[in-house]
């Protein structure tokens, strides 16, 4: 039966929301790993029943959990993330060198073709890969070692590698993003990397157009056009048409160009979604109105999507990994809030309804479309 499975990571556990293709009636499963922070969970495109989850705790560290039955049962796999060679230093908040220290896994990105291959983006920023289903992890240390690593500095949320985009047409090309270093690309499977931040302009760093130091919040790609990327930066929404070689701003008529999430319609590569957030420091929707903004022209012209979303007294945030789309014929769009709501639209954003309202603060949302 065709349906969707929404994987929700929260501050206090993981939840799995399921529905048939109508996406009108939902079942809520969980919490899994109750009490633990689940920064992210994601399914393998090659085997939808293979799921990976990042389970962490300030007390008891990092665990990686794996499921082979769509989240019915889980088993812990490898949790040793050791930096390759001498870990070295990055820049600390006060400008002094600070040793690289592993804290947690922010994002897990399974390979599109191999259920046992999965990438992990971690804090302090680095990229790891497992080729044995999460049993062991090896750092792709060319990223930290490409030259600018010692100058990277954490944002307020830590120095996290939070976005991993695998080019579906070229297994050697990977895009990643780090707060607050910027975006990077490899064209040789992770051996060598280079910053791809030309065109970014960030007034909060000494040189607003520096090669690194930008607080990129999220990057999104449509699988049919892997050279076109969309970016939600700390401020500004941007686009590249040449795989990151240069970016240009597409914020257009957004009420604020600050935000965390950005995603692309499953069937319309020029249709993109953001959730504008008021900043600095407030980090809630402008005017207390929770609005998703959609552009059908690849940016610059945006329309507010409000039907079914609270339009008064709403002061939640939508974090960087907390939006996803399904690939049913009428594209479903989903996002989670720090207030514990998970909203779904079965009509590409025209109307919304909450799947669930009272979860712990939502850290991540992923969607699997099940055949």
């Amino acid at each position, binding site marked *: 039966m065709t349906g969707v499975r929404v994987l929700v990571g929260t501050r206090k556990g993981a939840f799995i929301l399921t529905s048939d293709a109508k996406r009108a009636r939902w079942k809520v499963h969980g919490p899994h*790993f*109750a*009490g*633990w922070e689940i920064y992210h969970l994601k399914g393998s495109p090659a085997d939808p029943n293979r799921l990976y989850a990042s389970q962490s*705790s*300030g*007390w*008891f*560290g*990092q*665990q990686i959990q794996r499921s082979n039955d769509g989240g019915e049962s889980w088993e*812990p796999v490898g*949790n*040793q993330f*050791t930096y390759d060679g001498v870990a070295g230093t990055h820049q600390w908040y006060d400008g002094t060198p600070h040793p690289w220290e592993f804290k947690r896994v922010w994002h897990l990105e399974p390979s599109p073709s191999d259920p046992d291959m999965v990438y992990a983006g971690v804090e302090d920023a680095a990229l790891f890969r497992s080729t044995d289903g999460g049993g062991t992890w090896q750092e792709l240390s060319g990223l930290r070692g490409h030259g600018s690593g010692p100058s990277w500095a954490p944002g307020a949320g830590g120095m996290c590698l939070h976005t991993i985009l695998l080019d579906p047409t070229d297994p050697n090309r990977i895009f990643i993003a780090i707060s607050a270093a910027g975006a990077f690309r490899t064209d040789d499977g992770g051996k060598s990397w280079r910053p791809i931040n030309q065109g970014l302009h960030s007034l909060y760093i000494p040189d607003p157009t520096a090669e690194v130091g930008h607080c990129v919040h999220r990057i999104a790609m449509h699988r049919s056009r892997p050279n076109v990327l969309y970016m939600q930066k700390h401020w500004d929404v941007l686009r590249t048409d040449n795989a990151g070689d240069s970016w240009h701003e597409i914020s257009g008529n957004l009420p604020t160009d600050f935000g965390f999430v950005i995603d692309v319609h499953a069937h319309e590569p020029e249709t993109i979604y953001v959730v504008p957030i008021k900043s600095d420091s407030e980090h809630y929707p402008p005017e207390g109105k929770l609005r998703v903004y959609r552009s059908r022209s690849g940016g610059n012209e945006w329309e507010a999507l409000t039907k079914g979303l609270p339009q008064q007294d709403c002061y939640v945030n939508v974090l960087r990994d907390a939006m996803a789309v399904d690939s049913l014929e009428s594209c479903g769009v989903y996002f989670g809030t720090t207030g514990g709501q998970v909203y779904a639209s079965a009509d590409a954003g025209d109307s919304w309804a909450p799947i669930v309202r009272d979860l712990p603060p939502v850290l991540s949302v992923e969607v699997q479309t099940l055949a």
Partner: protein
Amino acid sequence: MIRVELPAPLLILARHEGEVALDVPGPATQRSVLGALEARYPVLRGAIRDHVTQQRRAFVRFYACRRDLSHESPDVPLPEEVVSGAEPFVIIGAIVGG
């Protein structure tokens, strides 16, 4: 037989209920008890002490016989009451709100 009390999150992780009873070869120290515990429950590797440095995680504490042993050397013998099984070796997570 060494008795070990685990905090609730680690009991869930280890899928165990109640105290853990361990046979610890050689002198009973923090290091040997934790080694035996991790051998019994590999999922606890990295959750109590660092994989590589073996340093206690910052927000984990070790108590026994109404004493905080957290800052003692991991190779100091544990109190006789722990070795005899009269008292448990207690692993707890530091208390915090939220």
